[in-house]
């Protein structure tokens, strides 16, 4: 493959040159903003100073290493992305469009966040996005917009085309590297002559100017290979799909299944990236995923830079958001996959929390009068994670058993009842659970060389990240398993599923058990992180919030549910909880609003109307997006299908349940 790329590849043809300009500008502008406006440059310089002369930096060694890895990964990914995008671009979006998109979706939020702070910045960006979408639709309507034809040289994939694609990828990576290096060089020289750059770093500037294009060349090659594999694979499938009878008319079942699952994977993929083709391809998604994972992994390093150290940091808050994600994903199994409405989901969360709370605190000795060493018990956290989750799952089965004959909302009320009984039991059995006072002094987990405390939220962040990762993995595997398909079958039609051989009893019980399992997991994490358990945290209201997360995100769709959980958490904790603080600040817009309201309603605080605002948001989201923010592909298809039917009025004449019967009547 390398041999195919001659040196001439770096002198691009006219069409490729346009592509290069398009993507280099699109990627370079946000990167430059990150580097020069945001603290990117300062971080890089500090890291280098730390490596070259450790005394001159204000970072300690572990932070330094983490930051260095982050920076290398980040810039390498961007370089590779440049090559990939140039190679894979089908030309369906014009240069201007891409730039405008980058401007609106990356640059404006970045600048706003820097200027106004994270929350307000994002909120203002959201408003701008809404206006942008509206304006774009209007303009397109007025101008009778049709997307441009795909580039012609992308239709066929013979050896020549492959070579061209490869060349474009390499050119993309290389030229991006060159341009970025030159821009950085110029800026650094200005800094140097104005005296704000240490001379020692000049060596690095020179090295970098050479290094970036070289790195761009090789990363471009790598991404080109990725792009090639994607496009070639797609092309092969297409030609196979066109001649199914190539092996003697026998339809290859295996192949059909593969096609089916790829088409389904693509549908699901659209949920993640509703955008233009190059960004929607599986390769680009892998990039996004890597970027996202890298970002999440390095986030604890960035958090102090964004929000400040100590109590200003947001990490602890994200640790809490994490268990909401697990809860929402678990509930999604019961409600989203199996279609069983569960209004008492909080019960399993309580069970998980109390399992760890009662074992890893003085409560254990108080109840059993066995003397135990608490610091040893805290090592049991890891096996107990599974045990607590399994205990919760067992209760899921115990609850599921009596509900098997029930249907629809009768089932919902039984789960609701269970959700009400469990907290009462924990509250009133105070001999064992310490009743309304709850359990305090619950041990945090133990791990060699890790400090678990409130002032160091990073271990909890990584723990919950790992748990979320496992939960997502388990959810995806479950959904695609035989069991998952059985769940979806009984959700769609219980009788049809049962007559097709789905064991209703087993399938439903497994759904309850799987949902309860993750809830127990989250509960145990919650108890360990909080260092205590209180019976107040497990009310019906909490169950309802978890349900709202699932429905708002997009019921049955894993990315949707994650987004739903994060959105609901962010609205409650980061926006509504801070309204009063914002209103107290005289420079804020809210201050004036607040002053007007206190004239009308004395003693008014935003804290008092938190639920009101949240309720209005719930109603509005449901009215404008009843299928959730990111609906599953299946549901979206259903809705689209429904619209088609409305157009064909004639279709409504046929009774959908008994078409044969209807036609017989007509014949007679």
């Amino acid at each position, binding site marked *: 493959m390398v041999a195919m790329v001659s040196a001439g590849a770096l002198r691009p043809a006219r069409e490729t040159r346009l592509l290069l300009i398009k993507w280099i500008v699109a990627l370079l502008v946000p990167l430059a903003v990150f580097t020069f406006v945001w603290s990117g440059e300062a971080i890089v310089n500090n890291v280098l100073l730390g490596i070259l002369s450790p005394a001159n930096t204000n970072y300690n060694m572990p932070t330094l290493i983490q930051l260095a890895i982050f920076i290398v990964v980040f810039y390498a990914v961007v370089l590779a992305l440049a090559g990939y995008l140039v190679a894979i671009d089908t030309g369906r979006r014009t240069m201007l469009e891409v730039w405008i998109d980058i401007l609106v979706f990356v640059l404006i939020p970045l600048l706003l966040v820097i200027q106004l702070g994270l929350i307000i910045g994002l909120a203002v960006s959201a408003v701008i996005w809404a206006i942008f979408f509206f304006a774009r639709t209007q303009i397109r309507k007025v101008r009778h917009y049709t997307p441009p034809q795909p580039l012609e040289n992308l239709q066929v994939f013979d050896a020549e085309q492959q070579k061209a694609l490869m060349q474009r990828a390499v050119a993309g990576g290389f030229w991006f590297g060159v341009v970025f290096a030159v821009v950085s060089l110029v800026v650094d020289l200005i800094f140097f002559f104005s005296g704000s750059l240490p001379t020692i770093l000049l060596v690095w500037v020179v090295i970098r100017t050479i290094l970036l294009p070289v790195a761009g060349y090789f990363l471009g090659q790598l991404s080109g290979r990725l792009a090639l594999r994607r496009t070639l694979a797609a092309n092969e499938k297409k030609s196979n799909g066109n001649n199914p009878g190539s092996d003697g008319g026998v339809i290859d079942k295996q192949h059909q299944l593969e096609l089916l699952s790829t088409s389904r994977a693509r549908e699901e993929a659209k949920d993640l990236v509703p955008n233009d083709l190059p960004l929607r391809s599986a390769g680009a998604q892998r990039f996004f995923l890597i970027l996202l994972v890298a970002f999440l992994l390095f986030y604890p390093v960035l958090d102090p830079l964004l929000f400040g150290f100590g109590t200003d940091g947001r990490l602890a808050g994200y640790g809490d958001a994490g268990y909401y994600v697990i809860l929402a994903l678990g509930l999604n199994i019961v409600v989203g996959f199996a279609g069983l409405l569960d209004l008492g989901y909080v019960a399993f969360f309580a069970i998980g929390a109390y399992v760890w709370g009662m074992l890893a605190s003085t409560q254990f000795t108080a109840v059993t009068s066995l003397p135990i060493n608490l610091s040893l018990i805290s090592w049991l956290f890891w096996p107990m994670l599974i045990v607590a989750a399994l205990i919760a799952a067992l209760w899921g089965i115990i609850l599921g058993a009596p509900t098997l*004959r029930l249907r629809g909302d009768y089932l919902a009320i039984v789960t609701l*009842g269970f959700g009400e009984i469990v907290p009462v039991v924990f*509250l009133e*059995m*105070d001999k064992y659970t310490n009743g309304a006072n709850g359990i305090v002094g619950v041990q945090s987990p133990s791990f060699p060389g890790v400090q678990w405390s409130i002032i160091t939220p990073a271990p909890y962040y990584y723990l919950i990240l790992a748990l979320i990762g496992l939960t997502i993995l388990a959810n995806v595997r479950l959904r695609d398993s035989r069991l998952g398909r059985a769940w979806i079958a009984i959700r769609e039609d219980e009788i049809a599923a049962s007559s097709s051989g789905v064991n209703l009893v087993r399938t439903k019980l497994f759904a309850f058990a799987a949902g309860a399992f993750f809830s127990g997991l989250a509960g145990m994490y919650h108890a360990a992180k909080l260092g205590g358990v209180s019976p107040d945290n497990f009310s019906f209201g909490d169950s*309802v919030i978890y349900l709202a997360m699932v429905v708002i995100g997009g019921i049955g769709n894993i990315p949707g549910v994650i987004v739903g959980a994060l959105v609901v958490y962010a609205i409650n904790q980061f926006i509504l909880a801070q309204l009063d603080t914002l209103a107290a600040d005289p420079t804020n817009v809210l201050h004036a609003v607040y002053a007007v309201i206190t004239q009308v309603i004395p003693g008014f605080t935003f804290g008092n109307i938190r639920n009101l605002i949240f309720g209005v*948001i*719930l109603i509005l989201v449901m009215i404008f997006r009843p299928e959730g923010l990111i609906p599953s592909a299946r549901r979206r298809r259903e809705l689209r299908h429904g619209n088609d039917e409305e157009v064909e009025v004639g279709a409504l004449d046929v009774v959908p349940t008994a078409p044969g019967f209807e036609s017989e009547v007509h014949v007679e």
Partner: protein
Amino acid sequence: MSLFIQELIVGLATGAIYALIALGYTMVYGIIELINFAHGDIFMIGTFVAISIMGLMGITANSHPTGLTLVSVLLVSCLGAMLVCAILGVVMERIAYRPLRNAPRLAPLISAIGVSLVLEDIGKLWKGINFVSFPQIFPQINYDIGSVNVTSVNILVIVVSVLLMLGLQWLVTRTRVGRAMRAVAQDREAAALMGVNVDRIIAITFFIGAGLAGAAGFIYGLQYGSSIFYIGFQLGLIAFTAAVLGGIGNIVGAMLGGILIGIIDALASLIPDSNAGGIGLPHGGAAWHEAIIFAILILILVFRPSGLLGQQTPEKV
């Protein structure tokens, strides 16, 4: 034994209130298959409206009107609470539920939760975060029958509830609107084809259901003497349970369920405290009353999956 009968009568009065709220749940469920979580909060607003109307009529916690004044205050505050709640119910249906008539099944449920949160905070803004006392204007007379004590308020509560329930039963079974409601509940499309204005009938259902919740708010105030912004949620939950117990969608079932739950609720407080020694539950039955109600509900549903009076409909294929 006399204690038992005593609690039975208290339970009957509480149950009557549950039944009135449960009717709203069951009517709405019967007609659009929605668990209207905001219904309990409408009941809460009802108690507040009644308190405010009494305040407007110059009644304070210490005033004891008699004769015609008493009757007019009672009537005006009861009807006022009913009317305000009924209008609120219709507005709520128009804003939060009607746009979602054809949406996925859980969407209206979530918007109902949203409405519930909104109403709760409106109650909080209106009357503050503390208990609001409800003027005890109805003369408290104790009748001793044997060793059982019955108060005049108990009797009033039961009489008013029974009258309202009879009125509703008449409306649903004997009038044109009632027939239209039953038709829409049975098959919305067919009813529309027969010339029933479905939207209007659903609005009327919300009007009546919310009105009954307003009346329940009024008699709750008479019975218990205070109200607070969050009572609606808890009481609504129990009333909803009552509706399910009786067979949701069934009006007589909701009445029966409400009264049964009221009685269970009252009898639960007879269970002794096991912490004091002997059999019973820790802290006595009263602390466990919710758990007992739900446990009995689950038990009943295991044996009668569609509630006490619900029809065991074969599933549609």
